[in-house]
């Protein structure tokens, strides 16, 4: 006869069987039975007490992005659960597999506006891949299995499981379900048809000016080798999206770097002049396309994408292949022909050289520039760190000045652009990333959104180096105000605490750097310290990120950094 288990115990039993090593969460009334049961499991499963439930979801997300496994966050009902919303939306936009377990008021009280009752399946409906309200203990184990399966398969994403308190307290004879999961409405696609392969090959082998657009899907599908083979065999330049960074080594001669709003001018020009785009696991977000009406007007388009609803959503394509990217590339690559495209590469080279001359690193500046700081961080980590960024100017500068040669070494909030992501995401990543240094690059605005997680970092002795790029402004917003709102800096100057003293108060080492020559020595101190370290970089306030495609403008219509040879050298 099977053993009797409570719903709360079943939760942990199921998490163990899913291979969960760590859960990020915060207890409260409606989830208390599950926390109480944790006392029987905490030798097998690590729980991290966060300081805000948003942090729990970002940590689960950060852990998931670093490990490729499902991250787990836990919270109580009502405000505990609603605090998770930003983190869930962030994971949804970036296809990150997390499972959020929330307590709910008892089944009998649901709908009665009980204390700390919020309709969480309703609230999270549009920002989860799927969600569940478990109303009977008999369904609990199977629901948790399905949730993990849905979160990690197909296009990954967040799944929320709302468990009423009485379901956690109920008991049954527990038998873990072992039959294969069969969801009648959920079948992630596998491979391309022969016709699709032939149609794609026809376009690829005929193209004179092709460009590969590599997105997050390359990393999710683990198709880095296949992508590289396509690029090298077909002699085709590659540009990546923000989340596609690492799909091909930055130092690879065919990698043009990041495209889009703050991408390189040369990949953007290449896209506009291309006669074929091969979109691999990306979704033509407005930040990479600019004005859709003028986007890559001369090209045919192949779109390989696991989510059928992305194909033809923003950009009309000629060949849409709804399947797993790695599988499709393995189907296509053997018949890709090497074509001489030296004229095309020559053109790209010209665009690139023009950009190099405008590079901020060529400029003399009396103040420390954020770009210089980030370049130094790259230098001081031999370009091999696991970097977590927040959102804004420092994020875009990271993409421009920290070259990633390895996949899964950059974690950043792309689609949602969630300020406050980096510190908790890095704490989450630290539970998986043990063979690399973890460096957080975060602005002075962003850090103050989730700064309470410093306590979590110290409590867990998370081995993370937090670099606050402090320009005294909400930098990217200020840049928009300067460019598009006649420099009216409304509510963008932002006050910061003394970060060194703050670090001291939270009991972690804190340093302040104002000169470029102090960066590497300070980094050494951080690298020698086991545990979290905070470094504040005081940088130039009025520097901008270039190039910039203004929102909705044509992709080739970039605002460029003034050319040092022809225009004044002011960095403003």
């Amino acid at each position, binding site marked *: 006869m099977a053993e009797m288990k409570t719903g709360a115990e079943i939760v942990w039993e199921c998490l163990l069987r899913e291979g969960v090593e760590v859960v990020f969460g915060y207890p409260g009334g409606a989830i208390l039975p599950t926390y109480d049961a944790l006392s029987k499991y905490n030798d097998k499963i690590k729980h991290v007490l966060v300081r805000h439930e948003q942090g729990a979801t970002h940590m689960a997300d950060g852990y998931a992005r670093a490990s490729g496994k499902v991250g787990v966050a836990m919270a109580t009902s009502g405000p505990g659960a609603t605090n998770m919303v930003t983190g869930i939306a962030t994971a949804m936009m970036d296809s990150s597999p997390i499972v959020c377990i929330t307590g709910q008021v008892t089944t009998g009280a649901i709908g009665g506006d009980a204390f700390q009752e919020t309709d969480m*399946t309703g609230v999270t409906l*549009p920002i989860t891949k799927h969600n569940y309200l478990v109303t009977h203990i008999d369904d609990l184990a199977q629901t948790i299995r399905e949730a993990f399966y849905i979160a990690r398969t197909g296009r990954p994403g967040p799944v929320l499981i709302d468990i009423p308190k009485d379901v956690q307290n109920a008991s049954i004879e527990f038998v873990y379900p072992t039959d294969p999961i069969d969801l*009648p409405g959920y079948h992630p696609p596998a491979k391309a048809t022969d016709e699709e392969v032939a149609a794609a090959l026809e376009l690829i082998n005929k193209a004179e000016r092709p460009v590969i657009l590599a997105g997050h899907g390359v990393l999710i599908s683990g198709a880095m080798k296949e992508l590289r083979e396509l690029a090298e065999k077909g002699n085709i330049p590659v540009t990546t999206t923000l989340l596609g960074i690492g799909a091909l080594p930055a130092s690879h001669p065919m990698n043009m770097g990041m495209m889009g709003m703050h991408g390189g001018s040369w990949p953007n020009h290449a896209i506009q002049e291309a006669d074929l785009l091969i979109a691999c696991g990306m979704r033509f977000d407005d930040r990479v396309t600019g004005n859709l009406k003028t986007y890559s007007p001369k090209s045919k388009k192949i779109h390989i994408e696991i989510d059928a609803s992305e194909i033809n959503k923003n950009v009309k394509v000629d060949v849409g292949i709804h399947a797993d990217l790695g599988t499709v590339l393995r189907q296509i690559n053997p018949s890709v022909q090497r074509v001489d495209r030296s004229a095309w590469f020559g053109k790209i080279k010209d665009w690139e050289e023009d950009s190099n001359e405008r590079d901020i690193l060529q400029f003399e500046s009396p103040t420390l520039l954020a770009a210089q700081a980030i370049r130094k961080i790259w230098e001081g980590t031999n370009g091999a760190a696991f970097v977590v960024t927040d959102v804004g100017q420092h994020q875009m500068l990271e993409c421009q000045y920290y070259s990633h040669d390895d996949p899964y070494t950059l974690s950043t909030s792309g689609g949602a652009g969630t300020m406050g992501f980096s510190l908790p995401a890095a704490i989450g990543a630290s539970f998986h990333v043990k063979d690399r240094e973890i460096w957080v690059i975060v602005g002075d605005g962003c850090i103050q959104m989730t700064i309470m997680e410093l306590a979590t970092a110290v409590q867990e002795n998370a081995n993370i180096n937090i670099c606050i790029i402090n320009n005294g402004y909400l930098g990217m917003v200020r840049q928009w105000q300067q460019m598009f709102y006649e420099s009216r800096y409304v509510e963008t100057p932002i006050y910061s605490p003394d970060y060194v003293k703050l670090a001291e108060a939270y009991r972690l080492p804190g340093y302040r750097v104002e000169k470029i020559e102090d960066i590497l020595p300070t980094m050494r101190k951080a690298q020698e310290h086991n545990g979290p370290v905070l470094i504040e970089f005081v940088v130039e306030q009025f520097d901008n990120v270039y190039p910039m495609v203004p929102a909705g403008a044509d992709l080739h219509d970039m605002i460029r950094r003034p050319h040092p040879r022809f225009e004044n050298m002011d960095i403003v």
Partner: protein
Amino acid sequence: MKQTLIALVEDKPGVLNRVASLFRRRNFNIESLAVGHSEVPGVSRMTIVTDEEEMLRRNIIKANLFKMVNVIDVQDVTEQSCVLRETALIKVEADSVTRGQVMDVVEMYRGRIVDVGTKTLIVEVTGEPEKIESAINVLTPFTILEIMRTGKIAMTRGEVMPRTNGTTKAPSNGKH
């Protein structure tokens, strides 16, 4: 032409909300939605009519429906040969003088009188939506007090039918 979709969905709490919410979230408009049990226990069947004219957007609607975990199969039957029906209950003012005239109209539309009051009649009309429109127009001069329409329901003619086990999804590879 209006887009007509047939969706087979799992008969679980909240599924109708999920489908309706999808349309709202993606900025698509539902013209009518009819839902009820199908021939398979645990599977509900929906007929969804949208006002979307553009082919690419129609495909996106379909792909988004497909993507939902609780949606088993979706067919866009806009261009297919279908039996389309809608039923309307129409309450009309009718006293002893006008009752006969109303009944004549109902006869022409092959409708039925399903309730008779001293000053009212309830008329039931079934047919393609155009027929319902026409019946409503003709009855309007008698003073219509209430209308309840079911929304369009659709079934493809012959052997074409959606799959209740969802197996069409995997091999079709996105070419839905």
